[in-house]
């Protein structure tokens, strides 16, 4: 049943966002595609029996390694970047400006190559590579979080809640946090496709990320070996971007 403007006005923002997301065709297709990639792992044992070539089964299995690594790196990067951006907004003034100038300066660099640089400077091993994938996401997350945190402080309802005598924590819990979660989700979601991209590039170049799609693409010498991981990587990136568009539509945020 179609919702009227009155229905929308009386519902919570989160219910409206969920409704908009569920009615975003691209986001639903992306979600279905992503689920298919994730659940495709269940097809591996029968596939190995049916198809002589192992590349499809191997690529499906590598999907789990790629996505698990990317999700962990994105969460870590978003957390560190979030703290950085939030601290800059909290301090404000010269300290806040210096923190954000550093984030902007780092974000201007080709950070997708950071895992390669870390492998060269760190002397190999998985630790520098893994840490570099995470760190490559931090400046972008810091910039995104800072913008939202600064914007949240300017809302009139925050001033009204303070004027009503609510404590700092209560204002934050009851007013600021619920209103910034949506925009934060929109701004930080791109960290996930970016993590997939940075990991895949580093693995493709053979400096880490063994057993992921990037490593399989880098090692492929024939089209038959290249296509399964390449198509799965492209489908996953397309799905993640489509879900991102759905989240933007859900919270009615326009892209620049």
């Amino acid at each position, binding site marked *: 049943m179609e919702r009227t403007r009155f229905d929308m006005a009386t519902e919570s923002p989160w219910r409206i966002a969920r409704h908009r997301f569920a009615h975003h065709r691209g986001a639903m297709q992306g979600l279905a595609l992503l689920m298919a990639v994730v659940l495709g792992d269940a097809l591996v044992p029968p596939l190995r029996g049916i198809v002589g070539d192992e590349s499809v089964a191997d690529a499906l299995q590598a999907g789990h390694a790629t996505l698990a690594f990317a999700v962990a790196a994105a969460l870590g990067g978003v957390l560190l970047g979030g703290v950085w951006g939030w601290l800059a907004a909290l301090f404000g003034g010269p300290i806040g400006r210096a923190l954000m100038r550093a984030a902007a*300066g780092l974000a*201007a*660099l*080709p*950070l*997708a*190559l950071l895992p*390669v*640089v870390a*492998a*060269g*400077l760190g*002397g*190999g091993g998985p630790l520098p590579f893994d840490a570099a994938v995470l760190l490559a996401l931090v400046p972008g997350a810091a910039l995104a979080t800072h913008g939202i945190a600064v914007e949240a402080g300017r809302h009139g309802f925050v001033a009204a809640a303070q004027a009503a005598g609510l404590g700092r924590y209560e204002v934050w819990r009851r007013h600021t946090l619920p209103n910034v979660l949506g925009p934060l989700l929109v701004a930080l979601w791109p960290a996930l*496709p970016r993590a997939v*991209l940075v990991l*895949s*590039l580093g693995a*493709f*170049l*053979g*400096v880490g990320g063994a057993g992921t799609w990037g490593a399989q*693409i*880098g090692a*492929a*010498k*024939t*089209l038959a070996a*290249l296509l399964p991981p*390449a198509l799965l*990587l*492209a*489908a996953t*990136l*397309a799905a993640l*971007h*489509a879900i991102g568009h759905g989240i933007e539509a859900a919270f009615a945020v326009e*892209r*620049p």
Partner: protein
Amino acid sequence: MLSFALRRFAAALTAVLLLVAAAAFGVPEGTAALGRAAAGLPVTLALVGGALALGLTLGAPLGLAAGWLGEGAATVGAAVPGFLAAALVAVALGTRVPALAALALAVPVLGEAARIGRAGVAAVDRQGFTLAARGRGVPVREAFLRHTLPAALAPLAGALGSLAAATVASGAAAEALFGLPGTGSMLVQAARAGDAAGTAAAAALLAGLVLLLRALGAVLRGGLDPRARLE
């Protein structure tokens, strides 16, 4: 405008010099490695410049003119990163022609340029100054060329830095794949061999190239949209 351009390039050059000095003196044998890495810069510049020029030239009109076609190009651009396109081209065609590497790297640039161009036209439409110009009797063609086009292209110029960063990163993979003697392939070889001096030198030069292209994009944006000079 001139002082704005000089300020942007001076800031970028200062950052480049700091990066190069850190690579030269912060690592043993850094100066020699820097000389070797600099020898590959023309190859990298040709590859990255060619891919950016091709992608922007094809992608911007696509985004400005065609709605669904621009959206389709943007989806392909987001789903197929440059290194993946380069790997597909190299394995499918079985050749290592450098022009094909530039063509492959142009795919994501084209997609992103189409997306930004499309969003730029939509943003200009919402602001209404083209409509105001039409209301003053300015012909459609002149209103488009003088008002809509510069304002719609300004965000694209502003995105040159991020497009350059992505293309340089994928370009390193393409150089290694196609066997091109560029700074990117030197970075990959040095990283695989654990050569700290080579890695630092190549990374500093690639980062410097991106910073200069970013400054160029900011200056172009300032020329197209005077409001950008105030930021």
